């Protein structure tokens, strides 16, 4: 939930020299090397015996957000919206080749930033013998922990959809995966950069801020630099291990205050996307009812070099509470920038949560949790639940509360520069969101 990172606002952007390793040559070499592939592979076990298939999915979601208080900038207490999502997928060659298109549109009468269409995904895939090739706008997930996805850096966060950071924008990419007995090796070329989405000053969860689109201050874009990443993952004995390297533009912006800060006026911030080199490690080990998870990153680049990690354990209880299965989650979030850590990036925090699968006819589920900064006592509480109605509808509810810090308002703008107080920005944005989705 890296909404803001004001402390780094004064960082002067440095343009990094172009990447010297020829990633393209590397990808080509890996592709050629995969000629010595292993035995025959069916692209999709369920698609092997059929001809070309076209699949179409669609959903319409009616959403209502309610806030107990007016926004910092006088925004409404209610925010209704409607979203349409389509997924069209066509494959041929027994599933070896496929195209996926996923357009999305949300209409939000109150926030013009949420009144927009987007292509969630639009990519071509080829599944070969021991390798996969993907080209287009795509989403890729890396990682193991629940409260924060540190390692997962390819896709930009679509923060305007949900501040839980689970929604992500499609990233233009060319990726090659080599599937070997010794693991999966992936190489990504990531041309193009997408900015993080933020609510407008008419919308909610904007705090007292007016966030501009970055017109400058995006690393390397003018020079046409292309981001790239490598990943290796494998199940080694009981340990699911992932190692990754990312070289490119940090998807998480720093912010510069671009106008004089005055009481009663939104604080104008400009996001700045610096260069980043990240080494990431993610691992999971499951023993009986216990799961142990780890994500760690070492980041360098324009921002000061730092380490961050999330350590988690999960205990699964089955048959303890009736039919339900229950997961108890505990995670520790660490960032060695300490007090200089950007807001909602959690320098030294604990996440505790409970996940319940009710195992009823409606597949009802519930996830409740809280992130606590044990030094300041500030907390983010969240509750997410959903249930099916009939065969085609799903009702979901989500609530979030930002607790334990004094409000930080447009009337007290200087405070925005004090790291410990930035959390006050969201104190008026506690919310309850109800969503009714019809699937087609």
């Amino acid at each position, binding site marked *: 939930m890296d909404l803001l990172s004001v402390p780094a606002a004064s960082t002067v952007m440095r343009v990094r020299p172009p990447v010297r390793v020829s990633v393209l040559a590397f990808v080509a070499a890996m592709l050629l090397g995969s000629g010595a592939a*292993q*035995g*025959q*592979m*069916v*692209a*999709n*076990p*369920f698609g*092997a*015996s059929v001809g070309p298939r076209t*699949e179409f*999915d669609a*959903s319409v979601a009616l959403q209502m957000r309610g806030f107990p208080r007016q926004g910092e900038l006088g925004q409404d207490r209610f925010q209704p919206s409607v979203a349409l999502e389509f997924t069209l*997928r066509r494959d041929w060659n027994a*599933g070896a080749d496929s195209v996926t298109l996923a357009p999305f549109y949300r209409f939000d009468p109150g926030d013009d930033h949420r009144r927009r269409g987007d292509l969630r995904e639009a990519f071509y*895939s080829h*599944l070969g013998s*021991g390798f*996969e090739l993907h080209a287009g706008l795509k*989403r*890729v*997930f890396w990682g*193991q922990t629940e409260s924060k996805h540190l390692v997962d850096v390819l896709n930009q966060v679509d923060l305007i959809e949900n501040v839980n950071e*689970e929604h992500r924008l499609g990233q233009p990419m060319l990726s090659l*995966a080599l*599937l070997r007995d010794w693991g*999966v090796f992936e190489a990504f070329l990531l041309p193009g950069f997408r900015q993080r989405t933020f609510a407008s000053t008419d919308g909610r969860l904007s705090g007292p801020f007016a966030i501009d689109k970055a017109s400058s201050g995006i690393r390397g874009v003018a020079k046409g630099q292309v981001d790239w990443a490598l990943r290796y993952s494998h*199940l080694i004995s009981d340990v*699911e291990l992932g190692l990754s390297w990312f070289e490119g533009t940090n998807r998480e912006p720093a912010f510069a205050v671009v106008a004089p800060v005055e009481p009663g006026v939104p604080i104008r911030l400009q996001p700045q996307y610096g260069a980043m080199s990240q080494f990431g490690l993610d691992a*999971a080990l*499951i*023993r*009986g*009812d*216990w*799961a142990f998870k780890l994500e760690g990153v070492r980041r360098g680049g324009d921002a000061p070099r730092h380490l961050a990690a999330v350590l988690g354990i*999960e205990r*699964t209880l*089955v*048959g303890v509470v009736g*039919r339900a*299965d229950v997961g108890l989650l505990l995670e520790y979030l660490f960032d060695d920038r300490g007090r200089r850590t950007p807001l909602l990036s959690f320098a030294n925090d604990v996440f505790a949560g409970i996940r319940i*699968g009710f*195992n*009823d*006819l*409606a*597949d009802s589920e519930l996830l409740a949790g809280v992130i606590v900064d044990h030094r300041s006592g500030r907390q983010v509480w969240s509750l997410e639940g959903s249930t*099916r109605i009939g*065969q*085609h509808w*799903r009702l979901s509810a989500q609530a979030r509360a930002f607790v334990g810090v004094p409000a930080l308002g447009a009337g007290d703008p200087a405070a925005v520069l004090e790291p410990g107080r930035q959390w006050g920005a969201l104190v008026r944005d506690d919310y309850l969101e109800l969503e009714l*989705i019809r*699937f*087609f």
Partner: protein
Amino acid sequence: MRCAWLASPIVVVTLVLLAWPEVGSAREQLEAALLQPAMASEAKGVAVAQAAQRMDAGYGDELVAVRMVLHDARGASSERAIRIATLEGAEEGDRSLILFDSPRDQRGTALLTWNHAEREDDQWLYLPALRRVKKIAARNRSGPFAGSEFAFEDLTSEEISNYRWRFVDEVPCGERRCYEVERIPVESWSGYSRQQVFYDVTTLRIERIEYYDRRQAHLKTLLASDWSLHQGRHWRAGHMDMRNHQTGRRTELIWSAHVFGNGLGLDDFSTAALQRLN
């Protein structure tokens, strides 16, 4: 060519001659074993399980479509459509993929399982909305599968070493005769204290299982029916009915479109394969 024309019936006959005595002998050996009065009932129980396993061995891989109909105690019902792919394991255990087609809000969700005889199974869940593969605790296997009366452990193939076995008797079951065998799960996470398994004496297919919970109370009964024979030796039930006697809930599984010998391999049962099912 003439040789090829001649060769094919020869191959078929040879294969039948090779395979058939083996199937027959599995049952004959079992009958002989069960007649020995000195043989311990534990050894007889294992003999039945081994013979049943041998009768079904060699299916290679299998695709099947399943319609699940869930009934709760008040008479409400809900349906799910899933597809299952299974790969027969050689030294390692079987591997399986389960893909959800409906309800639509679950569409694309998939589950990959690697069974192991000697250690905990590996299991991964694919969540399509997040494009996320999550390794999950095998412990989930004793809970309800997709809200049904089947636990995951009821659906996967059984490794003999996962149970302690005891032969009870030859008993009538419906219009047939069955070997009744008691099996006690070895693994501490199992939801059962024991199961009474009823094998048809001629085909050694499982006609009925009675499940007893950790408190030794009769929990569920599974009845299999609508049998069909595949490749001359693999019996598959077209209908399974699981009744929970404690809650009044019931789940029907309607199996269809069995396809064997799809040429599937280990690569089709990897976490990479899990992400490309749809």
